[in-house]
Each structure stands twice: as C-alpha cells, then as structure tokens.
C-alpha cells in the first residue's frame, strides 16, 4: 500500500492569551483544534477557509514554525513533533513554505543571489560559493527570472517577481513538500495567473507535493486535487475536488461555494447568505462551532460536538446531519 507523504493526526495548536489581573485561569485560543488529514505524494491538497479559521497556523504547525500543542505529524513515516532542532533542520530541507507577502518575507538588505545562496549554504548544497552561484542562476531560470537578477535587491522587483523569488528559495533545497500559504492573494489577477501556472509547472517538473492554503475558493479549486474546508480550527469537510463542488455536504461548504461571485452575469444562482460573523476562536460556540450561523441547526448542534463522519472513502464531514446517531433529528 502507498504510504502517505504526510500524515497529520489530531493536530492541536493552542495559544494562551495574556493573563488578566484577578482572573485566575488563563484562556486559550484554540487556533487549530484537532485536525486529521493525509497528503499523498504528488498531489495537491487545498485548504480553504475564512480569516481566523486557523489555516495559516495549521500550515506553520506542520513545519513546527509554531510549536503544536498536541497531536502527531508524520513525514514519510517519521514523527516530526518529537524531533530535536538539528534533525528538524534536516527535515526542513524536505518541507518548505512559501508565504503570502513577498514584501515581508525577503530580507530587504540582501541581494537575490545571497538570499538564495544562503538557503543552499544552510543545507550544505553546493561545495563552493562559485558552485552555489551557478545553482542560484539555474534556480532563477526555473522560476522564470533571468540570471542578471542575481545582483538585485528585493525592492527592485514587482510583487509577482518577488513571489517568484520566494518560490525559488523554497525549491532551492529540493523539497518533497511545499506548503504555500496564500501565495497569490497579494497579487493582481493577471500576475496571479502567472504564479499559479508556475506552481503547476514546478509540480510536474520537480515532482512536488503541495499543501495550498488560500481563502479564494476559485484559486483553490483550480490548483487542488483534494480540498479541506476549515472553520474555526477544524476541517469540517474533506473531499476530492469534484465531489466537493458537485455535492457539498457540510452546510458551511454549501454556503461558501454559493457565496463566490460567478463570472457569468446571466447565472442567477440561489445564494445562501449566512447571517452573522465568524465567531472568535477565543470563545467558540458550544457543540458544533458552526451552529450559530447554520441554517439547518437543531438542538443537538448546540450541545454535542459533531464527530468526523466518513461518508464515502476519502470523504469526511464534521456534521450531525450525516451521523447515524443524530440524522433523525434533521428529518
């Protein structure tokens, strides 16, 4: 049987809030609250959700850029959460991240050559500085930049080009998995398409696996093979792309898909408009976290946390409607 490249089990990342005077107990923000999924080699798993749902925290927890509170992360069968710093660094040459804001993630005082060269040197790729320079030039070519850019500073590039540099840095160490955290949301649409195509090309030529985190459902749909929909620290639905869009099961997924404006002015779709806002993760609602905005809400939703239900192989949903113990309530 195929072993998954990455397998995440019951991952939880909690942040303690500041201690308030006279208040004995520290509150915790459950940014990621029990997440399970697997990523197979060569596939793209899209993670979609609204701001504050914990999708970025999840991405960073997998790389241990933020230490997870609980749970297990296995990369190629090896447990990541218990690694020491030295082994962790080795592992990071296999798992890389591309950030949203290419303005903030590149050191403004370093040339492109030294930014990429540093990545190579840290992971002992290339023996001499000359050899590394050659590699940097090759990398720039791979991401659609030219070798003359090697002496330039980040501010001399446009947003799209900077994101190319960010991608070059990620692929410099020959990773197997790249976590892309909102890589195109700061870019104009015409440039966004260039970067999405670059991701696709690199996946094919380098055999990469992606976890693609974004809030834009159309972008996630375009790049992903499977999609996980997050709401308040949980994956509420996990499914292959086609099924998710043809037959969304979770009420939140249904609302999310229907809320995306279409490009066809003639299409008049029945829009589900959710009332209210996303609740704060510091005081999530009882029972099912989505019950405050759900149109099918029943008593059980307010009191009991939903379980993860396997509807069909590879298709998970976190909702009482699909739970054989509770579905009678919804009839």
């Amino acid at each position, binding site marked *: 049987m195929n072993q998954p490249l990455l397998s995440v089990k019951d991952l939880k990342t909690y942040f303690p809030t500041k201690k308030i005077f006279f208040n004995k107990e520290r509150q915790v923000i459950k940014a990621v609250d029990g997440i399970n999924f697997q990523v197979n080699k060569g596939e793209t798993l899209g993670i979609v959700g609204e701001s504050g749902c914990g999708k970025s925290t999840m991405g960073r927890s997998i790389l241990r850029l933020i230490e997870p509170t609980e749970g297990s992360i296995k990369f190629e069968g090896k447990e990541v959460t218990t690694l020491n710093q030295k082994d962790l660094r080795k592992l990071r040459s296999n798992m890389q991240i591309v950030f949203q804001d290419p303005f903030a993630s590149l050191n403004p005082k370093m040339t492109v050559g030294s930014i990429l060269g540093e990545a190579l040197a840290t992971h002992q790729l290339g023996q001499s500085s000359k050899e590394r320079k050659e590699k940097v030039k090759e990398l720039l070519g791979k991401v659609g930049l030219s070798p003359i850019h090697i002496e330039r500073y980040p501010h001399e590039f446009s947003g799209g080009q900077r994101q190319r540099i960010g991608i070059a840095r990620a692929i410099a160490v020959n990773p197997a998995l790249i976590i892309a955290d909102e890589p195109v949301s700061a870019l104009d649409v015409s440039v966004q398409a260039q970067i999405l195509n670059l991701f696709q090309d690199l996946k094919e030529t380098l055999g990469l696996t992606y976890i693609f985190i974004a809030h834009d459902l159309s972008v996630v749909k375009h790049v992903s093979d499977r999609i996980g929909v997050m709401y308040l620290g949980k994956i509420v639905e996990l499914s292959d792309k086609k099924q998710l869009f043809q037959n969304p099961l979770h009420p939140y997924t249904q609302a999310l898909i*229907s809320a995306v404006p279409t490009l066809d*002015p003639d299409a008049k779709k029945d829009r589900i408009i959710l009332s209210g806002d996303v609740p704060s993760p510091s005081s999530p609602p009882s029972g099912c976290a989505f019950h405050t905005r759900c149109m099918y809400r029943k008593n059980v939703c307010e009191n009991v946390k939903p379980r993860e239900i396997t509807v069909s192989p590879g298709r998970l949903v976190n909702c009482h409607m699909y739970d054989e113990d509770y579905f009678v309530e919804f009839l």
Partner: protein
Amino acid sequence: MTIELLKVENMNISFKDDESGTTSAVKDLSFYINEGETVGLVGESGCGKSVTALSLMRLIEKNSSFIEGTIELEGEDINLFSEKKMRSIRGNKISMIFQEPMTSLNPVHKIGKQIGEVLHLHALANKINCKEKTIEILKKVGIPRAESIVDEYPHQLSGGMRQRIMIAMAMACNPKLLIADEPTTALDVTIQAQILDLMKMLQEEYNTAILLITHDLGVISEMADRVIVMYYGQIVEEADVRTLFKNPKHPYTIGLLNSVPNIDSENEGRLIPIEGNVPNLGMIKSGCPFRSRCQHAYVKCHEKNPPLFKRDSQFVRCWLYEEEGVQA
C-alpha cells in the same frame, strides 16, 4: 426614462513630482452614470481607479495635483465649485465607502457619536432625537443589537459590521450616488455576500446610483449594469455587463477574464496569464500602453495610442477594431 446623473468629460488627473513636473495618473476619462444604475470600474492596482473616485469627490490634495475636465452632477460642473460648496455635495449627493473600514472610522469615538455627527452636520437630527435616529439607521443596514452597538467602539466590531456602519453613514443623507471603492476586498466571501446583498437592497429602496470600484471581476459581474475597464489611467473598454463578459473585445479585458480561475468551469487546464507586469506610471511615453503585454501588437500600436472605437454600445481602445467601429 433614464436620467443622467453624473457626466465626466475629458478628465485628466496629474500629480506634481520632484523632477519632471507632473505625472499623469488618469488620461482623458469620459463616462456617465444614470440614476439608479450600477457602474463597475475594474482594473488592477495602479490603473487609476481609486484616484478617479477620489477626484469625483474632490478629495485629492489640491496643492500637489491637478484635475482638469468637467465633472457634471445633475448638470452642474462640480469641478468648478468652491470648497465650501463642495462640502454641501459630499454626503448629501455623493458619498463614498472605502476598502478598509477600520481606517475610515475614528478609533477613539463611539459608533453612536460618529453616526450622530453625520446626522448633525446634515441637520437630519437634533440633540434630542439623535440617538433614536442613529439606532434607526443602524437597523436599516442590518446591524443586530443596534441599541448597544451605538455605545461601542469600532475595534469591538468585526470587519463586516464596520463596513455596515460605513454604509449606514454613507446612506444617511440618501445620496444620489454612492462611490464604493473596493468595499468588500478586505472581507471574507460569506461576509462579502452579505454586504453586496445589503448594497443591492438599499439601492432598490432609494434608487441610488453606485460606482463600484473593484479588481474582482466576479463582484462586477454580480453587481454592475455597465462596466468600465481601466488600464494605465485610461478607459480601454466599456460595455454593458453582459456584452463585456460574453464578448470582450480589448486584449486586456480578454486577458483579465482568461487569467481568473472560474469556479463554474470544469476546465482543469492551465490559466492563460497576461505576460509581464503592469507598467509604472510615466514609463510609457507613446503608443498603446498595453502593447508590451499584448499578443496582437503591431507597428501602429508602437506609434500611436488608439482612440476609443465605438460599435453598438461597446467602446474599445484598440487599433484592432479601427475598421469595425466608429471613432468615438
């Protein structure tokens, strides 16, 4: 019958810069908005759409910028108005909402006070009935527990709620024209759907015209009656929403539509991006500003910037349509 509300003719907006005198941000812009109509203004960052909106309200700094041309609102050229007279237009006839509601609300004043100020200034309420009126307005834009929200500060509210407050303030005087500059860009999709729904509802109730500025083609297709596409400070295409999405003509419009992943399509292939980047203002001195990114560019495009060609009700600024259309 349709009544023309706003008519902008040959508007040029330029900014003083250090060296060479001025940088032109918007060139020769002409458009109109009818009463009760939604006009979408679409383009990428730096194309001049926000500066156009600010100029309509005369909100860009006078010392460092020039607005030429006429901006006729109900037959009067507001570009000639004194600052004092302009103040009677802002809020009353034209009002505006912005992308980031947190920066447009005052963080140290309660919501009630900020809306009350609007009502006071426009003599819609006195000291006695101010709170009552404020609550009434808040309820109209769908704010739950309006009675307690008036005593809260902006930071206590979510992004969607803040944008509702901004809309409440903008709509307080029942303006003829609402300029919405990227009103939902900072919001999540489910909240975006709420805000767009609210804008539509208010528009139907008060017959307000909306100038909707956004980079999001989906929002445009959903909301607009007519669409203006801008590139490098110029209108490159203008058409009714159906024509624009079904039969786009300008290579830039076609490129934009091709580069957006469509949520409804089953097409799994590659996107067709527009190569290159949006040029910086002042970089292109002659010819068509889009030519360096255009697949169809030929000699003429390098020599001369095309005028708008008109065919039926569609306007295209491209030499490819020189023979088909009439110069507008």
